[in-house]
């Protein structure tokens, strides 16, 4: 198979694009898809300080690498979830990447800094592990960004992630979640702006990007994720994609372009009437936010603790914490 762009030997075929690419053209393809996402959704205003949610997996490390290639400086934040050897290995990969590229990586360790880990905490709180994990990530990344003056949090959600979430939201016709499903969520009082620059790239592309760029990422799946609904949706969508290449992209982007606006007002009343959590001050519809309730049940302590964000500076002192995005 030959590269669509230069006719060299291809290393990857992408049926969705009816194309194959050699190594150099594939890297350009990935960069171009991110550039388009940044531009089309006006994700990162010029001069913004960007914080990437880094997990040690393929998506977040590839995102960090691509943003740098596009001239966008960003710092990283790794959240230690206390999932045994899996968390230890993923933390090491995140640190190694930051060190190798001279980047700033902040860290929060859930057991040490907040008082619970995901395996035991989710049991104590009677939540599914992925639910407790997602809630902790959303809360703590937002908290860290606000605490350290970042304007934008960028996550590694890719096309497959977004299509799977859309399938779940659509099967339940969950209009409030559909209203919030968009590649950029603007910042509001108490919430930092959130963007998903990989929305135009699939999981195969992200894994392949890491392989061709020599990015060492955690290949093993999180042991807590086995059997979760999200994986079932991805499997179903991949079966559809096999029969009809481009089905996932059509499903997601037709929703974003033609249907998302119809749900925009869902949940607006609740979003407009948020009050500060009595525990941590984060916006919440009730007295105590969902994260503080999780923390209280999981750690057994009703006393809120300030969550330190350990700055692990891995770049030269002159660069550390000084990163600002140029115009994408």
């Amino acid at each position, binding site marked *: 198979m030959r590269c669509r762009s230069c006719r060299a030997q291809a290393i990857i075929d992408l049926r969705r694009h009816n194309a194959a690419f050699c190594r150099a053209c594939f890297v350009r393809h990935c960069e171009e898809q991110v550039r388009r996402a940044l531009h089309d959704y006006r994700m990162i205003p010029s001069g913004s300080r960007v914080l990437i949610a880094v997990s040690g997996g*393929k998506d977040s490390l590839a995102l960090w690498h691509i943003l740098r290639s596009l001239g966008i400086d960003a710092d990283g934040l790794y959240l230690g979830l206390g999932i045994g050897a899996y968390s230890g290995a993923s933390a090491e990969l995140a640190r190694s990447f930051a060190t190798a590229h001279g980047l700033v990586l902040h860290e929060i360790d859930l057991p040490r800094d907040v008082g619970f880990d995901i395996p035991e905490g989710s049991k104590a709180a009677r939540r599914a592990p992925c639910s407790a994990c997602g809630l902790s990530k959303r809360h703590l990344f937002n908290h860290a960004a606000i605490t350290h003056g970042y304007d934008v949090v960028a996550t590694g959600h890719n096309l497959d992630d977004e299509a799977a979430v859309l399938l779940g939201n659509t099967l339940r016709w969950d209009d409030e979640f559909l209203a919030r499903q968009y590649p950029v969520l603007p910042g509001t009082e108490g919430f930092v702006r959130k963007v998903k620059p990989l929305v135009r790239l699939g999981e195969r592309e992200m894994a*392949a990007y890491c392989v061709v760029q020599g990015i060492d990422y955690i290949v*093993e799946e999180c042991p807590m994720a086995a059997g979760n609904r999200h994986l079932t949706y991805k*499997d179903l969508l991949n079966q559809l994609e*096999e029969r009809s290449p481009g089905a996932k992209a059509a499903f997601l982007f037709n929703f974003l372009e033609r249907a998302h606006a119809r749900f925009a007002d869902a949940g607006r009343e609740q979003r407009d009437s948020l009050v500060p959590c009595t525990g941590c001050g984060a916006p919440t519809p009730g007295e105590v936010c969902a994260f503080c309730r999780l923390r209280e049940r999981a750690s057994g302590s009703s006393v809120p603790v300030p969550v330190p964000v350990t700055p692990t500076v891995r770049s030269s002192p002159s660069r550390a914490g000084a990163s600002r995005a140029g115009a994408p």
Partner: protein
Amino acid sequence: MKVVLRNPKREMEVAGATTVNALLVELSIIPESVIVICNDELVTHDTHLGDDDTVEIRSVTSGGA
């Protein structure tokens, strides 16, 4: 050929498959869910395989959202 699968990591010997696509069909793996690395090089689905090759089939699906 030696085939390495991930999640969990395991190895097996497979005989007879002539291309990456044929190997994935034989193992009932959806091509969209994996990348294939033959002798440390990323390869396309039409790549021919030989008995001396080492082929890693790496799942790309992650569960978090």
